């Protein structure tokens, strides 16, 4: 070991050089924006494409979008969706989902159901906080899904825009599915020999 090296070593020891090295990192972090954040009080920013809780959406006038077509049920790889559809008796020919269940404990958040939905009634929101003590509450029914949808309508729409399912333009806002009208009387009088 040469004299120079020895001197260097002694000098390092006297000046507590390692400590200054370590403190340098510490002090650097004191002036650095923190990477972690105080979770319940602070919320993370979530991208629009995030696959969170599923929700059912309404049109702007408050009408349910879902027409009860059961395609989400068919598309679901984990078979967690059950739709029971019916005809709206007050508005003949209008099909709607009488009951709609998503067993969120089974859901794998693949988003296939949203992709399958022909009327963009299903969307994924940024909601991810639905942990619970009671597993049974994780069977989302129609009421719960609409509650989520009403609360996070904006998230849902953004999800659809981000995935290219709905266009964020004025014309597409007017998009909705129209049912055929029912006819109670013939559109033209029946021929004479049959009356």
């Amino acid at each position: 070991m040469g004299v120079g090296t020895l001197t260097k070593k002694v000098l390092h020891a006297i000046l507590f050089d390692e400590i200054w090295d370590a403190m340098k990192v510490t002090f650097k972090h004191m002036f650095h924006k923190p990477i972690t954040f105080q979770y319940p009080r602070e919320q993370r920013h979530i991208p629009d494409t995030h696959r969170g809780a599923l929700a059912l959406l309404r049109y702007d006038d408050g009408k349910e979008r879902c027409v009860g077509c059961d395609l989400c049920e068919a598309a679901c790889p984990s078979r967690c969706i059950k739709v029971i559809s019916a005809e709206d008796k007050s508005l003949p020919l209008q099909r709607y989902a009488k009951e709609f269940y998503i067993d969120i404990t089974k859901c794998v958040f693949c988003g296939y159901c949203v992709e399958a939905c022909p009327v963009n009634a299903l969307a994924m929101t940024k909601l991810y906080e639905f942990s619970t003590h009671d597993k049974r509450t994780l069977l989302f029914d129609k009421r719960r899904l609409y509650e989520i949808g009403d609360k996070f309508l904006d998230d849902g729409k953004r999800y659809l825009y981000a995935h290219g399912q709905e266009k964020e333009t004025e014309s597409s806002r007017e998009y909705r599915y129209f049912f055929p009208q029912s006819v109670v009387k013939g559109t033209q009088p029946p021929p004479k020999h049959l009356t």
Partner: protein
Amino acid sequence: MALKPATNPEAEAVTIELTIDGTPVTARDGVSLYDVIASTGKIIPAMCYHYTFDPFGSCGMCLVMQEGKKAPVRSCTAKAAAGMVIRTDGDDLFAARKKAVEKHLSVHPLDCPVCDADGHCELQDMAFLHGVTNLANAKQKLIPEDTRSLVLDFNMNRCIACGECINICKDVQMIDALQFMKKGGFNQVVAKGDLPLQCEFCGDCLAVCPVGAITNKYSKYLYKPWQMKKTRTTCNYCGDGCQMDVETKDTHVVRVTSPLSWKNKWGDRTETAKGHGGLCVRGRFGFQFIDSKTRLTRPLIRKEQDLVPAPWLETMHELVDRLQAVKARFGPQAIAGLITARCTNEELYLFQKLMRTVVGTNQLDSSARYGHANFVHAMRDALDVSRMTADSETITKAKAILVVGSNITETNPVASLRVKEAIRVYKAQVAVVDSAHTNIAKLSSHPTPVKPGTEGLFVQGLLKAVIERDLVDTEAVGQHPAAFAALKQAVGAVSLARVAELTGSTTDQIGDVAALFAEAPRAVIIIGEGIVRRSGGYRDVLNLIDLAWVTGKVGRPGCGIATVVEEANEQGALDLGVAPEFLPGPVPFGDENARARFATAWGTADQPVRLPDSGQGATLTDILDRCRTGQIKALYLIGENPLETLPASVNVKEALDKLDLLICQDPFLTETGKLAHFVLPACTFAEKDGTVTNQEGKVQRVRASLDPIGESFPDWHIMTALASGLGASWEYESAQDIQNEIMKLLPGYYNLGQPKRLAGSPDSYLANRFAGGVTKRYTAADAGNPPADKPFRLIMGQVLYHSGKLSTQASGLINLAPNTGRVHMSLEDCERMGLKEGALVRITSAKGSLVMGVLPSALLLPGSCFVPEHFNEPPVKDLMTVDVDPVTKVPTFKLTQVFVEKA
């Protein structure tokens, strides 16, 4: 392959040769090119084609290239000709077909998500197959949906104008309720005259619609096809034994579909002679009783006047104790049983085994006693066969059909299609002898309306005419000259003019019908409720057999005698010995060999079971009589409801009140059930496995399509438990176990839906027993004119939309045909008496009188009134007098003389 049949089944068509895709093919002349290609196994898409009717050629998909032609040709409408060179594949053809799909799609709404046909749609399949992703000039039709009909919705936006619905309605059903109409620039399918659809509602149009243009109102929007479980089973409503698919979701029956569908479009046209696979309104739209709210879900025990629910274990313990007490105190002859012919063969077999071996009584009967027993007894006595000798193919290909006393399009709509096909395709001549202007009479060549109750008399007239006009078959008659002489002498008492006067026909009409039947090379008789459910039914069936014999139609190929039955398994009930006079087979109960065989089979070889003595048996009416005299103390009813079926004059209530023990086993709480001490909840046909035998003798499977509702059990299961409780060691764990036992005892009974064709031989009957009975059978006097104080004849009969009392539990059918509580009367009578629709009349018979509204009907003859037999409100059945046939013990109570006046 779908070949258009020759109108004469015996003539062979000329064979031609052509080349398809380089392969030489031989085909029959006069056949569509599409059929020839399909017969080689190649499938060309075609949306407007179905084998049950002639090609229509509207969809433009079945394009093929013919050598020598520049453009592709539609193969369905092109006739196959000798020497054609055809190419069925290629990029040009694919592109042309794709263009056709695009043409249809360009005016088709893309509303698949809300369409019921989604996933079961030919247009969807074709768009997928041809990769249609872009539509250049799409436009919407925006036609309002027609929801005026009671069961079907017409969404003409989705219609591709393939015409399948119209064609099947016109060609197969011969109802012609639909038509094309140009409205709003588009060809639309509408009900005739653009009125609300009013037809027989068979729903075949719905079945063949390849898109969602026609939808079923009862299951609309409920589920998508892929969500439902589909079970092929046999319809339980009538004796036709149609196959159907019950589609269920969990515990609900969602809808019923038929094997007839646009998906099964390839077939041999001649195969429709065995049935076209469709259903009628009852089968397709009357399924709601299966998961009805009114179903019994728990056993009920009578405790202090009330029926209270109880657990099965407790019920069965108590029931067995009570039954054993009755048996110990009064002996086995104090117990009797009745079972409905809607049960499966296995259950019917088990029932008679239970009554005969475990209980030890021969007092048992089934609902086949109400009419079918007349037919079977006559056929056994005369021809030595125990079911009808004409299968559906024979009927279809007949040259002459004599329909006697049957409104076949209403009672057995699918069987009637065989007659319709005979008329349409094979140009048969049909004579309908019935007491109303029925739909089949309107289609027939010789509609012969007769006064109600004189159908049997008309048959006597037919025999007289045959002998008078010398229409007899000398060969058939020559073998039995003695019998023929006896017949001739007996018929001598009949005067044609008198018959014509009493029946309300003319001697010419009688002669024409007789000549039509006698001169046809292939002739079939169809016997309906107008014969077998009237007094003298047994005699009239024998007379009809005489008619077939003297005209040489017995045993000749293509001829036969057929019947139509009301309940699904009446034939099976008699085949499996659920009658005091029969053992399974059926063989006579008194036959010593058979008794020994069954005694050993049901016991052991060393210890045969002791069967009841043959003299002790009792039929339906005898059982009720013995209940009334106190001889019978316990009655076990399975699905039977005598209180609501038989007229008040039989005093069923009094008989049932006298019983110490009344057990009712039924899916519903019936009026009889309300009197019972024990009510056991049974399953409907949709929840059990087994087989049923249809009127033709086809043994067909019934498969469970859903789990038993509530705590109900299949009937065989309850019977097994009861037998075990009574000390028998029965080890049946499924219907299959019972089936295995029947297979051993009756080899060949399970015929997989292909019964052996029976001819029947009258030789032994004619040689031995004929002469003794024949004179008594031809007495034209006994059905004289009605007495002056009761000039009307009141008939109770079936209507199209109902079957027994079961269908009144099906909300879909009640929706179509609710209980109007009105009596149908002819227009002439209504006019004469000044009666408007709904006017009240008082109907008085020998048994009582009641007031009800009037419904004028164009179908009835003057002098007759008609009431559907399915409803008891008002209790029209109580006006009827009961007449029990001396030979077959069949109680007849569907016709009576009444006086009608304004109330």
